[in-house]
């Protein structure tokens, strides 16, 4: 037999039993003096009745102490548990309900989702509780709650519980539930689908629960889940230029199921392509889709497994591509000449190989150094400026180039024999990644060495698809002494067998404000190398231009619940004030504000899966999309692999796993746990009796 108290703090009320004693001892009536001739008769009665009266006084005191003690005990609500009591159909208890509300609970099997089954079990449990029971509701996404007597309110909360994309493991909620039960004994119940993801970062939890109240895990998951999930798409979101072709590779994971399926590619709401795939249970396959983006703007799409399954939320994966207009590249020809002698002959071919300006990935324009100086504001028309063996530029032009880079422009500088090092040092020193030195010859020829291919400028050459940068041979270069600054990176070096070319900087990058400067210490044409004749030349110039025109890496894909930070590019400040964002499923966009100093939109309300578009008010005051991003489910949420009851019992001391609340009475009976009864009603009856007896005795004294 076990005695516990539902409100043990009220046991301190037992201290009030001292009140009748104090009153009895300290607040006795002061006797009033009175003359009375017939004292002999009073004395006679006194002798006869004294003992009896004293006993009555003592009995009254004991009764009053008993009344106070019974009241304090009753208020503390003692609970008596014994195997003699059968688990009651309706019992008074304190229960903590912990709901796993992760997305995996949306898996549907046998006509109901795991969450729906969890709600039904919780309702069944609440139905076994009698008046006076307390319940607290926590979820794994929001592990806060408090006990309440209003079980109907708890039922309503449960009915409205949604799935959340939060992938917080259950530990936090279990520990919060244990904390709730620390002061007042409670029965914790965890309703979960037992997926491994929910028990990730496993550690043992010892819930601080007195007595036999261990954790009851109600397994509402499917015993054998069958799920297909698109777990990845590459690229998940990117910025590109018009007329570029992107290849999207989707990865599909199968769990417990297989066979032929169809993968659909959607872009801008239109199914663009299908691809059949064949899965053979618990494996991953990939499929690719290619698309050329001819139109500038924000393009959003998804890849989807056409055939549905129990968990639809992970059957699609979203992407966003922001297609900018053709970057405008201004090439400054420092050494014009006929045909191949022209400094820009090979570059011109590489950057517009088809010769079609509209279809070219870049809009090319050529000027002389003098014409460059006359242009004025470069950022109004160009994203990239390329100096090809330009001898010298006026101070004002260097200053304008500096301003151009600071405000987000990209500058590529190819050194050559005509470069005036002093002019470069004097006016371009704050712009270039290093000081220009004299011409350096590589008698045996030098090759480019790229350490690691981790830099975005050369990342496209890592797998050899875009050619081998180490194949060309360089005979000459200008010395380039890099500044020892954090914003300067050495991307490639020259390497020869001789001493002169060992480690000489070949390509260096400097980040300056919002822009980038790439300095190549060799010539753009074939005067100092045979690079233009190698396959890597064209992609190198393309990657260079892309790198310079993108300026800063932009992220367009986030997981649900993550904070989305999206760079908006060079928008007019006034336009930033009239930004709006439309979430998936919303009919209209809502106003948002960008971080003014960084031209970045920070958005935290990423609880929906799909494409988010950012709009700006155009000149005609109509919103137009300027950027966007996709929010996808954490791929782990679709992993329905389950933990075993044994693993769970090992992880949580005292935990038991049941498939339904209805199994509990039998378990309790088998464990000899018995039922619980509230003693308070009996104490109140005893209190009432004691009070009646006290009143009768007290008045009996003074009966006429």
């Amino acid at each position, binding site marked *: 037999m076990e005695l516990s108290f539902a409100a043990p703090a009220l046991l301190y009320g037992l201290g009030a039993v001292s009140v009748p004693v104090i009153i009895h001892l300290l607040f*006795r*009536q*002061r*006797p*009033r*003096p*009175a*003359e*009375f*001739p*017939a*004292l*002999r*008769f*009073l*004395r*006679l*009665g*006194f002798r*006869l*009745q004294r003992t009896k*009266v004293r006993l*009555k006084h003592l009995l009254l005191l004991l009764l009053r102490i008993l009344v106070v003690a019974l009241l304090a005990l009753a208020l503390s609500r003692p609970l008596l548990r014994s195997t003699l009591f059968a688990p009651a159909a309706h019992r008074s208890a304190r229960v903590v309900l912990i709901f796993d509300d992760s997305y995996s609970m949306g898996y549907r099997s046998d006509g109901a989702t795991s969450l729906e089954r969890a709600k039904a079990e919780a309702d069944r449990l609440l139905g076994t509780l009698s008046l006076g029971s307390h319940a607290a509701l926590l979820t794994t996404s929001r592990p806060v709650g408090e006990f309440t007597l209003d079980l109907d309110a708890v039922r309503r909360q449960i009915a409205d519980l949604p799935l959340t994309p939060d992938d917080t493991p259950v530990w936090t909620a279990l520990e919060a539930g244990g904390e709730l039960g620390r002061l007042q004994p409670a029965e914790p119940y965890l309703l979960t689908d037992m997926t491994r993801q929910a028990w990730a970062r496993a550690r043992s939890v010892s819930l601080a629960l007195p007595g036999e109240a261990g954790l009851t895990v109600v397994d509402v998951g499917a015993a054998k889940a069958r799920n297909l999930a698109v777990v990845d798409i590459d690229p998940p979101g990117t910025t590109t230029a018009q007329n570029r072709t992107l290849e999207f590779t989707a990865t599909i994971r199968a769990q417990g199921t297989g066979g032929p399926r169809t993968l659909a590619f959607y872009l801008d709401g239109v199914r663009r392509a299908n691809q059949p795939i064949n899965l053979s249970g618990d494996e991953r396959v990939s499929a690719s889709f290619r698309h050329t983006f001819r139109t500038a703007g924000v393009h959003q799409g998804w890849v989807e497994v056409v055939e549905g399954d129990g968990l639809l939320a992970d059957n699609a994966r979203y992407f966003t591509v922001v297609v900018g207009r053709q970057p405008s590249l201004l090439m400054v020809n420092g050494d014009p000449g006929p045909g191949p002698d022209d400094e820009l002959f090979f570059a011109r071919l590489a950057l517009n190989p088809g010769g079609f300006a509209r279809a070219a990935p870049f809009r090319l324009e050529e000027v002389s150094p003098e014409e460059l100086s006359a242009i004025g504001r470069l950022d109004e028309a160009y994203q990239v400026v390329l100096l090809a063996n330009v001898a010298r530029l006026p101070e004002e032009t260097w200053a304008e180039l500096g301003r151009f880079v600071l405000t987000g422009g990209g500058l590529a500088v190819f050194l050559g024999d005509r470069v005036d090092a002093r002019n470069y040092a004097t006016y371009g020193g704050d712009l270039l990644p290093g000081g220009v030195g004299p011409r350096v010859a590589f008698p045996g020829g030098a090759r480019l060495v790229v350490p690691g291919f981790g830099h975005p400028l050369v990342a496209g050459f890592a797998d050899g698809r875009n050619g081998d940068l180490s194949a060309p041979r360089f005979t000459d270069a200008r010395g380039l002494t890099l500044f020892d600054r954090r914003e300067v990176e050495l991307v490639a070096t020259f390497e020869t067998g001789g001493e002169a070319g060992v480690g000489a900087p070949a390509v260096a990058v400097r980040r300056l404000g919002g822009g980038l400067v790439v300095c190549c210490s060799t010539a753009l044409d074939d005067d100092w190398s045979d690079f233009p004749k190698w396959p890597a030349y064209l992609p190198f110039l393309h990657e260079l231009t892309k790198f310079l025109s993108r300026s800063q890496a932009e992220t367009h894909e986030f997981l649900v619940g993550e904070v989305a930070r999206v760079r908006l590019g060079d928008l007019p400040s006034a336009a930033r004030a009239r930004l709006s964002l439309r979430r998936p499923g919303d009919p209209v966009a809502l106003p948002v504000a960008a971080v003014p100093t960084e031209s970045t939109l920070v958005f935290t309300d990423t609880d929906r899966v799909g494409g988010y578009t950012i709009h700006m008010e155009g000149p005609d005051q109509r919103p137009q999309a300027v950027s966007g991003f996709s929010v996808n489910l954490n791929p782990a949420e679709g992993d329905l692999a389950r933990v075993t009851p044994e693993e769970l019992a090992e992880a949580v001391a005292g935990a038991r796993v049941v498939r339904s609340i209805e199994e509990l009475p039998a378990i309790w009976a088998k464990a000899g746990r018995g039922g619980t009864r509230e003693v308070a009603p009996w104490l109140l009856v005893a209190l009432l009796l004691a009070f009646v007896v006290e009143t009768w005795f007290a008045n009996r*004294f*003074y*009966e006429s």
Partner: protein
Amino acid sequence: MPQAVVGHSHDPEGRRRVERYLDPEVIRQVERLDLKARFIVEGFLAGIHVSPFQGFSVEFSEHRKYTTGDDIRTVDWTVFAKTDKLYVKKYEAETTMECHLVVDTSGSMAYSYGKGVTKFEYAIYLAAALSFLMIHQQDSVGLVTFSERLHQYLRPRSKRSHLMTLLAELARVAPHGESHIAECLHQTAGLIHTRGLVIVMSDLLSDPEPVQQALHHLKFEGHDIILFHILDHAETNFPFEGAHRFREPETGDELQVDASAYREAYLQAIDAFIANYRELCFQAKIDYAQIDTSVPFDRALTTFLINRSQYNL
């Protein structure tokens, strides 16, 4: 003698005015003892409009009405001629009685609960009234006062001047000392040589057995005894509640009790005490009247009159 005293009053309003003098609280407000006595008697007589006391003379003049059986020779024919009414011409005290008033003046008699009439005052007023009544009936009245011993003994006289002596003595005496009732009654028995009426007024708060023996002594001497057992209302009802420290005024003994707790026991004891005296007096053919100081005087006077009428017989 005021006419209002004569016979029955036919003025109901007047009767009520006079009857209020039977109230001890009203009498207390009267200054002079002789007036107190007179008012008590007047009030008493005014109330006797239905007289059960056939054969008893309520007239204090030289004449009284002729009643059947009176000697025809005592009729005053002159008055008859004038009034056509038969009056006995000469009021002879053929029923003259010698009465001794024995008044307890011990300290306990000075008790009163609240500001009411004390037992002593009640006894004095009653004694004065009885003196007044009896002297005007030409009975002889004597007075004995006592507490721990006999203090005063006035021999019985029937003269009206003796009434003033009695009243003066009653007005002078003050309650003090312990009660030695039994001894004093025995001494009184030794003082009285002529059989008559002995009216004892006391609270009898003493050991009952010696008092009872003394009463038997008086009875043995051939006296008729009326025992007025005067107790305060608080002594008969014990209205106290809560903690009290009671003090006995004669001995100074104290007792601290919760009055409410012992009330029942006290009442049982006092009732037994009174019942004991009642039984004793009944057995000894002593007229017993337990008087509460809140009780109007007519009760005591009625007891006297009943006894007096039997004395006639």
